[in-house]
């Protein structure tokens, strides 16, 4: 007994002309969870506008860089077939997958957009005020650009730190440079050139 409208898949398909891949599941307690992968990230804004008109609340946004699947070596004389996501974006381990989780009266609808490395995605903040912080956070975790965000400042990570923190390996010793007061003090003294 899903509370999601029966025509949801059809409506989303209409708003996203490049195509969608839709799955939906209802658990034993009647709570539904729908997943809708957009073939083109450019369809995100119209699809999100549809969700807004449906009365959905944007719960949160998850960004990740899915690992590239292992591909078998191509047969001799054949070109290697590179894995792709639905919609044709390369699954090379660097592509961003952005999941927009909407709450529709307790049920969840997730819109999924794939953004090639170095690409950008439209901001949902003009549409959903509450997308502000999640979008600011995903911009500091990865190098993805959210275009049209009204206030693209850092959220949690200080502006003096290089961005895209989840794309780099940060040694623990660098991460914890203020773990001891002595270490921090020596660093400040070295930076300011003062004599202790």
């Amino acid at each position: 007994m899903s509370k999601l409208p029966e025509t949801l898949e059809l409506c989303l398909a209409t708003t996203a002309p490049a195509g969608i891949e839709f799955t939906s599941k209802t658990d034993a307690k009647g709570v539904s969870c729908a997943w809708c992968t957009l073939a083109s990230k450019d369809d995100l804004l119209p699809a999100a506008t549809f969700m807004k008109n449906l009365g959905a609340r944007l719960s949160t946004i998850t960004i990740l860089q899915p690992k590239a699947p292992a591909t078998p070596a191509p047969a001799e004389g054949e070109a290697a077939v590179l894995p792709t996501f639905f919609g044709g974006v390369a699954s090379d381990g660097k592509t961003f997958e952005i999941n927009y989780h909407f709450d529709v009266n307790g049920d969840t609808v997730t819109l999924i957009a794939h953004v090639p490395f170095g690409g950008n995605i439209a901001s949902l903040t003009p549409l959903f005020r509450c997308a502000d912080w999640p979008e600011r956070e995903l911009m500091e975790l990865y190098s993805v650009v959210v275009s049209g965000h009204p206030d693209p400042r850092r959220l949690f990570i200080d502006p003096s730190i290089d961005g895209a923190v989840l794309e780099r390996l940060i040694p623990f010793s660098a991460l914890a440079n203020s773990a001891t007061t002595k270490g921090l003090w020596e660093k400040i003294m070295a930076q300011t050139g003062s004599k202790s």
Partner: protein
Amino acid sequence: MSNFTIPVGPLHVALEEPMYFRIDVSGETVAHVDIHAGHVHRGIEYLATKRNIFQNIVLTERICSLCSNSHPQAYAMAIEQIAGLVVPPRAEYLRVIADEIKRVASNLFNVSVLAHLVGFESLFMHVMEVREMMQDVKETVFGNRMDIGANIVGGVRYDIDGEGAAYLRAQLDRLAPAVAEITALYRTNGSILGRTRGIGVLTRADAVDCSVVGPVARACGIDYDVRTKAPYAAYDRLEVPVHTLADGDVWSRAMIRLAEAATAIDLIRQCLDQLPDGPISCTSERPPIPPGEAIAKCEAPRGELIYYVRTIDSPRPERVKWRVPSFMNWDALRFMLKGAKIADIAIIVNSIDPCISCTER
């Protein structure tokens, strides 16, 4: 009238956790608020991808002390969905009991801090003393006062026997009249009413716009509670009244929390009455977790907590993402603080029951 920009925080705005507000004031009135976060950002989401799926139960419990039971519960629910594990009925009830015990303690804590900020120290200490009954329950039943370690993937790791149930009932019988007395006091006391009625108002329209959740939303008349909208654990078999108020002020939020503490006591009693026999976990060993993804939601003391987990062909998850209720509620402070007096800032900030270690992870 002179205009100034004043810093509030990052330390000791209302609680001991750090958040920095840059507040433009006109005379004594707040004109504009800018929120600067990040003082306790620890990168736990990254760490979660470096731990294996079962270690993350322990890690997620340590994100925040006040909703420490909700995190591993929602995480376990997501893993159970991926692996197709069915939690046995007894474990579902035990999960509700653990959840509601934490809710009573968490809500009373926030309401007591309100009394402290009002300057009503004896009431602050009284509410903390009443909350102590629930702390005793946690220590007795779970062996710990904050991180109770109740959940595992596939069930729970604690059980309540006849003696334990009798003790729990006796504590609830002592606690319920004390909570009722506190509620009556907050409803009628002049000092409380004078500092909280009509203060920090969030209208229903702004609340919808900010997508606030939990008691903050319900105090503005938004009838949303994950326990009834998307039932989990044993909530589909329990009588869960959803409390709402219309005014959206500091007082309404405190009253919702008190009403929910009383409801939580009732829910624990319902669970003890209905508690079925049977195993407390669907698996005695660590079950294999196939690749997959899932979303799980539960109602933490502060509102909707949502977990997204993606597993791949690896013992470690590829991504664990969670959004805590406080994350949504900060934005609403801009509306609540607009036009407020400087003296009310701390009371209003406390009224969203902010959890900063949760927000920044």
